[in-house]
């Protein structure tokens, strides 16, 4: 007979990190077992990310952009990102990926949102509000290059790019003839307008969204399925809902394993042997669906059998088994901070940038 002390231990050793283990699997990748952000209960953690995001949305409002506030909030979000316990290599990868994403967001906002300001940096009309129906020599040049390129290489995208570049050069260097048949009014004229104000808005937006992304990643990385189940239990959600969600997470986990194996099988079938166009790569991705569906059907049937054989019944109840977390002082304090953030997000607005400008 096993003694209680041996099974449970003085401090329930099954709840203590195993010796030498530093990371634990979470929804996304893994996190450090003792990550500070993960010490907070899941409810205040979600609430904190929601409150920060709400306040960020106010800071990046195009009518009253608050760059200083966005930067401050970004700092908080980045701190949370650092405290999430994400593996340094994965964190670096995310940071690296976020740079081009934020750059494209910045450029897109700047180009497609003409906001007038005190200083105009660039103003160019790119569309005069009329559609021109015409034939031009550059079109023939473009088509010829594209067709020839495809005929030689069986690739389309490269041909289109080459043809476009050469046609643009030809149009600017030579006065190529064109024959206009009609002009039809469509939409309104489009102008690229970059002013000091549009730069301010674009920067605020980028910083704000970056902060939101970091906070959300931190939340997903730091959370485990068991925490979610425990939280749902504490919120007294119906048992079938809790069970359904926990099974979905487990199934997603299995699907990722299957996806990886199937992708490896594709590599073994030489998909990387030659350079492939984006279309072919998309087709490769789509072809994964055939084995994925076959494997998932078999898995779902077996998971069903496994559930029944454990005695699971849809209307049955299930006791808590080390899923719920205790509510602690830090959780209460986090909720207070969140309420403060929400007050700032939805109450009277204090624009830190304007305050700073006045003070300076």
């Amino acid at each position, binding site marked *: 007979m096993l003694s209680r002390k041996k099974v449970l231990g003085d401090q329930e050793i099954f709840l203590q990190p195993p010796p030498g283990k530093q990371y634990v699997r979470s929804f996304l990748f893994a996190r450090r077992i003792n990550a500070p952000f993960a010490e907070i209960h899941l409810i205040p953690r979600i609430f904190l990310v929601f409150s920060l995001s709400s306040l960020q949305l106010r800071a990046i409002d195009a009518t009253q952009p608050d760059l200083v506030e966005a930067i401050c909030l970004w700092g908080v979000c980045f701190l949370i990102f650092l405290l999430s316990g994400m593996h340094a290599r994965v964190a670096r990868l995310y940071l690296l990926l976020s740079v081009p994403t934020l750059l494209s967001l910045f450029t897109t906002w700047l180009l497609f949102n003409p906001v007038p300001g005190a200083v105009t940096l660039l103003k160019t009309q790119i569309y005069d509000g009329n559609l021109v129906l015409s034939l031009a020599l550059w079109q023939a040049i473009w088509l010829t290059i594209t067709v020839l390129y495809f005929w030689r290489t069986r690739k389309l995208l490269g041909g289109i790019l080459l043809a476009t570049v050469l046609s643009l050069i030809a149009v600017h260097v030579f006065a190529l003839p064109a024959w206009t048949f009609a002009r039809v009014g469509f939409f309104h004229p489009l102008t690229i307008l970059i002013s000091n104000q549009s730069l301010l808005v674009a920067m605020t937006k980028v910083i704000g969204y970056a902060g939101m992304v970091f906070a959300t990643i931190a939340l997903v990385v730091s959370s485990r399925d068991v925490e979610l189940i425990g939280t749902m239990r504490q919120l007294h959600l119906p048992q079938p809902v809790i069970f359904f969600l926990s099974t979905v997470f487990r199934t997603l986990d299995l699907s990722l394993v299957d996806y990886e*194996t199937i992708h490896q099988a594709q590599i073994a079938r030489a*998909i990387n042997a030659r350079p492939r166009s984006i279309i072919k790569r998309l087709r490769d991705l789509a072809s994964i669906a055939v*084995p994925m569906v076959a494997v998932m059907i078999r898995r779902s049937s077996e998971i069903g059998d496994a559930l029944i054989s*454990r005695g699971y019944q849809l209307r049955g109840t299930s006791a808590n088994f080390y899923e719920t977390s205790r509510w602690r002082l830090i959780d209460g304090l986090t909720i207070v901070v969140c309420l403060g953030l929400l007050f700032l997000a939805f109450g009277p607005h204090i624009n830190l940038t304007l305050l700073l400008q006045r003070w300076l």
Partner: protein
Amino acid sequence: MSAALTLDELWWRYPTFGEKPQSWVLRGINLHIEQGECFGITGPSGAGKTTLCRALLGILPANARLTPEQLPTHFRGQVTLFGQPVTEKTASTGQIGMVLQDPENQFLRMSLLHELGFGLQIRGIPTEEAVKRAYEALCWVGLERLWHGASYIHPAELSGGQKQRVAIASFLALRPRVLILDEPTSDLDPVGKREVIETLNRLRHEHAMTIILVEQDPEILATFCDRVALLHKGYIEQVASPAEFYSQQRLMETCGASAGDLTRISWQTGLHYNNRVPLTLQEAETAFAPTLDRINWNQARNTSEQSSTATSSEAVAEAQGIWYAYDDGTTALRGVDLTLQRGEMLALLGPNGSGKTTLAKILSGIYQPARGRISMLGHEVRSRRDRAQLPSSVGYVFQNPDHQLFNRSVKTEILSGLKNLGLAPSERQRIATATIEAVGLTDFVDEDPLFLSKGQRQRLAVAAILAMGSEILIVDEPTTGQDARSVAAIMQLLCSLQQQGKTILVITHDMTLVAEYCQRVVAFRDGLVSFTGTPTQLFENRELLEKTGLQPPTSAELATALRSQYPTLPSLLTVKHWSALLQEVVNSDVAESA
């Protein structure tokens, strides 16, 4: 003794969406399983073994959602558990549980602690009692070291063997009176397999548990089961004690059921132990000793020499100092060296998680080694581009054919790899036709791979890789969970490819297969190569076997056991070797008596 389970005239067929009804999967099954008995069920693939298990648990017909009018068309007969009819609610009573073949599908939660506690939670067992039972169950399967931090251990962090043991432990925690195990050890290495079955056997005796074991491995059935049933095309062909069961040579061969080495030697030589086939080494020693006494050993040495396929000493693949670590930090390979010689069939052996598959994936260009040098067909594999070209010379056939069939017809499946290599359409067609013919799938050219049998899908997977003209073929556990006929068909295919000059690397846990077909073996342990040499060198050396953590095939074990009695006994690793040795004396006896 009273019955734990009885099946009375059980018939079942699956519902179909078409008008034509499916054929019966179970046909008039009558069984009477005693309390505390270990009852084995075996039979070829598709015989209805898993369906029978599902019926025993009450999953069928409940899960088929049949109306009372439809029920008699699909389900007839009765199943009772301890005298009570089995219904869809039977599983929730806690009296019966079922461990499935694939442990991955049984992991319903994402930590070891919660997985062990899942069934107990459903039953409303108090937390303290649930923890106690979970710990005990984990100890029973020999994994108590995982208890520390069990709530932090994810299923993906466990090896195949550990997963299967956890799956068994999660049922043991429920303390069922009847436990059904549907091929629970097919993914395990021989040592792990034996450990799991021995654990179950011990628990059966300690807790008077009834065990129903569905298994292909004849040695496990013969060693641990009180009675064995042969299921074939939905019929129970025979139920008998293992000794009697395996004595029915004609029936076993007709049904394509697997038989162990000792049984096959007995069948082929007609030598018996107490008028039945020998099942243990001691019985075999007694049965064969009189014949061995009359052998002229000088002559015998020549006749039993291992037949070897001619291989050249030219290295087609070389790996030197290969290191590899997974993203979670686990170091899978620690400076591995391996040379593959042209035209040989080499076996990669080792316990679960020892690094065999990782090295095979590195050789086929799927993984990039952290350190080390790889040379393939005389070319150094240095860059990513070099690795991308590897599939044209090294083909990798995955264990599960379902993971590697991407197209909707057999022909397009073969063509897709050729297209990736950039071959001309006419060339692609020619190769595809020839390959389909070579693997005997000509009648299924336009068939959807999903509708082929598992054996056919396996052959198609080999064909799809083969068509790409690979000089080297890596086959990952091709015979796992397959019946005797499928194993023979796959190995025949690989042998014919070897005879055509291909170099074959097989990853396997089946030592009989290694002894019968492979010229060389490389054994792995903890990410290191622990042995390189011939099967004879490995299987006849106890120290090497201990060092590598492997078990020899029964034929080799028998030879080792008899060597103290017959010091000049030659190397005998396979049934073929034993039969050749013994047959001569048996034939001379027959001639004399004639």
